[in-house]
Every structure is written in structure tokens, then in C-alpha cells.
């Protein structure tokens, strides 16, 4: 059995927090550039240009792409033939704090959600999947809360029409409107249980946005881009850069659908150990 020291995980979580926040994902930057090339609304074009410039400035000057450096969400794929020497959760949270401090990122985490109090750096929201093999894959996704606040879940009847589901997804974007930093990337989770659909919706944001979409994803994206919300909500054909759907088996009595909206600053970084 392969053994990995928890310190190695801490180092990785540290590096990934900094990389994710300072260096916008290549596919997201490419998606923004494609949208900029296609956009015909003058103001939308100008704002898209600023968004692209912002990413370049952030990388060059080692500044956060956005001041909301998010709630750190960490996705771990842990090979079942790998043994961790130390505490996985502690190692990740320690790494997140180190990275956020070293990267001069924002401490946006409140330990007690009701009584609030001073903001700190961790804990992250950590999801662990056991997988085959002896590798460890870690992804850090700093999720800004302007867009996280626009998340939606609906438990449809199993007899619902596909059109109802499409409408729910498009309406979720319409309700986010100008508030959550459009152009958006729309993560959708379909199936499972209420909680699992929400997790799938968030995981969908990890897919490369420039990858070819399914027919359904393309159709919904087209509908969303007819909303004329546009960058900053000031109009244009670029309301979303992509729609990504993850599905899972569900129960005969239900059809959960969750929407997790990301702002244009969709940030994540991954490393395999």
C-alpha cells in the first residue's frame, strides 16, 4: 500500500488555493475571449474586455482575480490503496489557511453562521470520494458568495416535462439577473437526492467550459443567452458562458434538480499526487 504524508497534502492545498485565486482557469479565460469575439452589444463588449484584462492583471500582479476569494470548496478523490499518514481534513484546512495567508487572500469564513463574529480562513467545505487506485486528486474551488446565494433546488414530480426543467434552470439565471456577476457558468445537478443534486450542480462547474456540450446543455445555454442580461446585467448576448449538467440515478417518486450559478470568475485548480 502506498503511504502519503499529510504534510504533502497541506502543501498541495496551499499551492492550489493560491493558484486558483490568482490565475483564472485557462478554459474560463478562453470562454471569455470567445464571448468577446462574438458579442455585438458595444457596452457588453467593453465590459468583457475589462473582465479579460482583470484576469491578466491579477496574474501579472499576483492579486486575487476577485476580492471575494470565496468559501474554499475542496474535492478529493482518494485512491483506496493509498494510506494517509496524518489527518486528511486537518491537512487540507491547514493548507487552505497557509495559502490564503501567503496569497493575501480574503478571510471570508464565519465560524458560527448565526452569531457571526470575526472572519477567519477555514474550514473549507470538503468532499471526499473513494476511488480505485493509489492516487490522490485534490481540487480547490473558491466559490464566491454573490453567485452562491443564487443557488436553487427544486424537487420535481417524476412525471415533469423536460420543458419544465429547462424553464426552472433558465428562470434561476433570470432571477440571478444582474446581481451575481454575469456572464455566468451554470452548473446543474439532476437526480440523486436533494443534497446529492446540489453537490452534482457544484461539481458540474469543474468541467471544462470550452468542452463540447450535450444537446440539452446547448439548448439551455441558447435560451439563457436570449435573456439579454449580459455582462453586468447591462444587456448583450453573453449572459452565460456555458451550461454543464451532471446526472445520477434517482428514485421512482422524484426528480431533484439543482442549479449552482458561478460568476464569470470561475476559479479552480487541481493536482494529482
Amino acid at each position: 500500500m502506498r503511504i502519503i504524508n499529510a504534510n504533502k497534502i497541506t502543501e498541495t492545498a496551499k499551492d492550489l488555493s493560491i493558484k486558483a485565486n490568482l490565475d483564472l482557469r485557462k478554459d474560463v479565460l478562453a470562454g471569455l475571449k470567445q464571448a468577446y469575439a462574438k458579442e455585438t452589444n458595444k457596452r457588453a463588449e467593453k465590459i468583457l474586455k475589462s473582465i479579460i484584462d482583470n484576469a491578466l492583471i491579477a496574474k501579472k500582479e499576483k492579486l486575487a482575480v476577485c476580492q471575494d476569494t470565496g468559501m474554499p470548496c475542496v474535492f478529493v478523490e482518494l485512491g483506496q490503496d493509498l494510506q494517509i499518514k496524518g489527518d486528511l481534513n486537518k491537512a487540507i484546512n491547514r493548507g487552505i489557511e497557509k495559502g490564503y495567508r501567503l496569497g493575501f487572500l480574503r478571510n471570508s469564513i464565519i465560524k458560527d453562521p448565526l452569531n457571526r463574529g470575526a472572519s477567519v480562513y477555514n474550514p473549507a467545505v470538503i468532499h471526499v470520494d473513494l476511488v480505485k487506485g493509489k492516487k490522490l486528486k485534490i481540487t480547490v474551488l473558491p466559490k464566491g458568495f454573490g453567485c452562491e446565494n443564487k443557488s436553487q433546488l427544486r424537487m420535481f414530480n417524476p412525471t415533469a416535462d423536460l420543458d419544465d426543467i429547462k424553464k426552472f434552470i433558465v428562470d434561476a439565471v433570470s432571477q440571478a439577473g444582474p446581481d451575481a456577476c454575469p456572464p455566468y457558468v451554470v452548473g446543474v445537478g439532476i437526480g440523486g437526492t436533494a443534497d446529492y443534486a446540489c453537490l452534482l450542480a457544484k461539481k458540474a462547474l469543474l468541467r471544462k467550459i470550452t468542452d463540447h456540450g450535450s444537446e440539452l446543455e446547448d439548448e439551455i445555454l441558447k435560451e439563457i443567452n436570449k435573456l439579454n442580461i449580459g455582462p453586468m446585467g447591462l444587456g448583450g448576448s453573453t449572459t452565460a458562458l456555458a451550461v454543464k449538467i451532471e446526472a445520477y440515478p434517482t428514485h421512482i417518486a422524484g426528480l431533484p434538480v439543482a442549479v449552482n450559478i458561478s460568476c464569470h470568475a470561475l476559479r479552480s485548480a487541481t493536482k494529482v499526487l
Partner: protein
Amino acid sequence: MKKIKTPLKRSDIKNLKSGDEVLLTGTIYTARDQAHKRLAQSLKKNKKLPFDLKGAVIYYCGPTKTPPGKITGSCGPTTSRRMDEFTPCLLDKGLLAMIGKGSRSKEVAAAIRKNKAVYFLALAGCGALLSRCVRSSKAAAYRELGPEAVFRLEVVDFPLIVGIDSKGKGVYKQE
């Protein structure tokens, strides 16, 4: 493009129309959720505020930490909606301009019209780019709130779009 300077006077913003692009130079105060809650509570109890609201500009922003050798960290706008419930009482006490992102409630639009104030939009999700307009940053109040403290920023040619003008007309569909 129109240029305006703080301290703002009502005559400076009277002719700004919703959708206009503006460059702002001068002093602005950051304040977000917790700072707003405190400001509103102080007003309710008739307590003195940590900065003068008369003619002031409030920026809904919680910057990242300032790296060594820099003036500020990343400093883009946060969602304005969350500040809506506290906004009318601040406007009634002399607040003249707000900077944020996204739509506002109809109560805020009405309070803007009543007080002949203005709501500006800043480039949303462009905190690194906007940091280049900041010439100085100083914690001004509620330091214990960390990133939610009030910072006094001196800005030069800070790019804005008029979101709701002094007549209460907004760029977004009013709900």
C-alpha cells in the same frame, strides 16, 4: 466621459443620467453588510458615526489583504441588494452616492429620488483592475470586522456607470 470629484455636491450629480459612464476621483468609504448594520444601529440610537455621511460616497466592498509593496488588494464591488434595508436611513442622513453591483429595491430607488442622490455600478468581478485606481487605503472604522471594516480609499478616475440617477431612474428593470 464625465468626471466628478469628491466632496460631491448635489449639483455634480444632478445631470447624471442612468447608464452614463463616469470617472470618480476623491475619497470613498468601503462598507458592506456588518458595517451597514452598525451604521444603521448607531443612527437609531442617535450615536455619532465613525465618518461624516454628509456628501459621502460609500463603496460596497471588502478588499483582499494588501500584499507588501502594494496600496491595496483586489477591491471590486459586492452585491448591493444586501445593503438595501439599511440604505434609506443613510441617504436621509446625507449619504450622496453608493457604489456596488446589481439591482436595488424600489424603496432604495425612491430614497435616492427623494434625496437627489445617485447609485453607481462598478466593474463587477474586476477587483484586480480596479485596484489600479486606488492611491491610498486606510482602515477608518470597525477594524475588528477585518475585511468588513470601513476603509477610506483615495481613488483616481475610478470607472463607474450610473445605476440609478437622482431622479430615481435605473438601468435595470425595477422590481
